[in-house]
């Protein structure tokens, strides 16, 4: 994995510190061309991995990349699925079954429907595979060497102790996409223990790591202990603690943990991208 992974929160009005800022971002990135412009700037600065959710608009970015193969040669995307708010809002309105009906591709669902819900219920893992394929469709022809499940799903599975779902995800991503499975979580120590308990070793885990312990469940100490002692491939996210930390002190802190392989960050201006990238390369 590259040391520097460019994220997409800024494009989709995700700001953990201010609703006002997220509206400003929504206005600025209304057009896909604005997203592409910033991505291109990141590429000019030598960044070659984009980690993004499976937001509808990413499909347009993928179209653009496919249409310009020379420009994006060697560029990689790490998809994180699903775009959770799409499902969360749908569940509020349609319920869980209604949401499955809405998002499982029509013809495939009718295959299930023929066998009835009883058939579907016996084959949750098949349903998971169908949903993964539906989310992955937009990346056809684009290099996706690592594929993540988003934290809401990871942490839900973790909480329910439904670890077989991790096993199935892991196997399917390797088998079908010839890619490395990755896990985004807000509960890193518990997740690593869970994955190890079912024989998944040295997993790629993307998790909040910052000096003030923001979104580090169970506290900073246990995270630091795991970063020093356990075997896994950490990607640090929320390193600026949603903007509460200055970039230099934030990234200097990450330098204490040589195990951290990559840092995920998002920024909207070329200057910020440059500054953060240089700091990561200096301290990591």
């Amino acid at each position: 994995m590259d040391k520097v992974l460019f994220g997409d929160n800024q494009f989709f009005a995700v700001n953990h510190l201010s609703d006002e800022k997220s509206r400003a971002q929504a206005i600025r990135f209304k057009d896909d061309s604005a997203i592409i412009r910033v991505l291109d700037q990141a590429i000019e600065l030598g960044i070659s991995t984009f980690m993004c959710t499976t937001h509808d608009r990413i499909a347009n970015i993928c179209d653009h990349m496919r249409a310009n193969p020379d420009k994006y040669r060697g560029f990689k995307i790490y998809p994180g699925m699903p775009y959770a708010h799409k499902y969360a809002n749908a569940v509020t309105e349609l319920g869980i079954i209604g949401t499955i009906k809405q998002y499982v591709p029509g013809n495939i669902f009718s295959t299930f429907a023929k066998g009835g819900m009883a058939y579907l219920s016996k084959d949750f893992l098949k349903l998971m595979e169908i949903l993964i394929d539906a989310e992955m469709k937009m990346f056809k022809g684009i290099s996706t060497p690592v594929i993540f499940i988003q934290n809401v799903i990871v942490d839900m599975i973790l909480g329910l102790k439904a670890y077989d779902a991790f096993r199935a995800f892991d196997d399917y991503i390797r088998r079908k996409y010839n890619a490395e499975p990755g896990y985004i979580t807000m509960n890193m120590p518990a997740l690593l223990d869970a994955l190890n308990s079912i024989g998944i070793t040295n997993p790629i885990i993307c998790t909040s790591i910052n000096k003030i312990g923001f979104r580090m469940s169970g506290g900073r100490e246990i995270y630091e202990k795991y970063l020093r002692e356990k075997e896994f491939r950490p990607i640090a996210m929320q390193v600026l603690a949603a903007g509460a930390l200055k970039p230099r002190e934030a990234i200097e802190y990450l330098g204490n943990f040589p195990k951290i392989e990559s840092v995920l960050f998002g920024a909207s201006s070329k200057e910020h991208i440059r500054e953060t990238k240089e700091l990561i390369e200096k301290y990591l």
Partner: protein
Amino acid sequence: MLKAGIIGLGKMGLSHAAIVAPHKDVDLVAVCDTSSLILDGIRKFTGIKVYDDYRKMIDSEKLDFVIVATPTKFHFPMVKYALEKGVHTFCEKPFSLSIKEGEEMVSLAEKNNLVNQVGYHNHFIGTFRELRRLIKNGILGDLVHFTGEAYGPVVTKPKGGTWRSDPGEGGGCLFDYASHVINLIQEIIGRPVSAPGAQLKRIYSRNVDDAVYSLLKLESGLSGILSVNWSDETYRKMSTSITVIGKKGKIICDATELKIYLKEPDSKEKLDRGWTIKYITDLAIPVDFYLRGEEYSAQIDNFVHHVIERKPTEINTFRQALETDRVMEIIMTESKR
């Protein structure tokens, strides 16, 4: 270890299950739902026992507490059954569709000395908690006005739906979204007693309201505005905010930040004149397990703590939730005028 059960495995029920199961003081022994699909999934992937009848679950499992996360119209029989069997009860919001049934649940819980809490989770978001503290300490002086708002993209096009689109089952923006805002206003600023000019507007839904606009008058005589719309797709997810204006300044609060403006410095609070911004990064309540927001775990931690101590919680009691139901009833009545 406390033994817990959950009734209703929709979005909130599953989310509670994932938070309760790993809790260090709790053993989630059983869950109950009527969907065989959901129950099959739980049976297949977790070690949790499943029931399709809540009475059987409560009778057989000797639970210390139960979480009721079913559509609102089912709260009354389920909560009542649990309370009668001496089981501490956490109930999702809104609490009840009928004031009479709500009153019965309140008195039963209080009479049986059972810990009772409702899922108005915003009170466990650090920013709203800080807003409450500041307002109670009188930092803004005499209050002049308030605005309570929530917007989000739940129903953004015309189509049918689930129980949330059925007014008889507790669906609609008033019950689902506005209840949160009313509850915040009630607990942070004061109890609304009338809702002049209340409007329930349909935008895309056929049978329920998609937006709620009203003036709210509080017990203290203070008035303010309620503005809630769940058909606003300019928001990525539900966004709730409270603005309070007083003679000494103003505070704008949402789940991410608290913007305080003071006309004069406040030495006790160490706040300057002009704007001070407090961020959630400094105010978030630490939790051992995180799913969708610290507040969901923090409210369960609070409930579990009080069950262990066998003493009533002061935050989000049935009684407080019933007050919110009363305000919603006032708004509904007023909107029909």
